[in-house]
């Protein structure tokens, strides 16, 4: 499996949302959001979908795998 790439930070900036706010909205801790943004944690499908739904986009748009 390739490396996890996320556009979470860009979407957060676009929606002017802090890590803590995003964490609270999707029901996780801020540490989890930090790990996600750094690509150090593979989220569950539910969490990925919750985040995508919050930003009004698709899971594939925010999360992808670098298969190089």
């Amino acid at each position, binding site marked *: 499996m390739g490396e996890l790439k996320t556009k979470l930070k860009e979407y957060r900036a676009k929606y002017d949302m*802090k890590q*803590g706010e995003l964490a609270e909205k999707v*029901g*996780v*801790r801020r*540490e*989890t959001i*930090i*790990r996600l943004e750094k690509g150090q944690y593979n989220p569950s499908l539910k*969490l990925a979908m919750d985040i995508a739904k919050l930003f009004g986009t698709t899971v594939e748009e925010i999360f992808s795998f670098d298969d190089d």
Partner: protein
Amino acid sequence: MNKAKVMNYRMKHVLIILLALWAIGMLIVARFQKVSPGQAVFEFLTLGAVHIADKFEKKDELVLENLRKATSAAFVVFVIAVLAVPIFCRIAGIETLIAQRWVDIPYIYCAFGAVILRSAVFLILDRTPKNCVEDE
């Protein structure tokens, strides 16, 4: 919900480590002073209270994953400490002072040790990366 009262989940495990160390200390003192280890029983209850206290953040999926890894690691070390080492010492007939003392270690110390190890491994796995940019 009062946000000011919610503490970081990592603090819970720091507290557990401190309480378990305190409990081991009390057990050692009780052993050498030949007094009742009632204080240590109190510590058990305190540890239980920490677990049910609703003052900490809720567990999320990353916490659950890290706790699973930490529990596995602590369990393996606990089994090695409590079963494998004493069995090996007896089979091998190691009669050195160290081996004899190891075999004589009460399981309660190993249990508290496992609690400490589990929380310590969790804290290591759950630490925030140093080079991450935090916006708060």
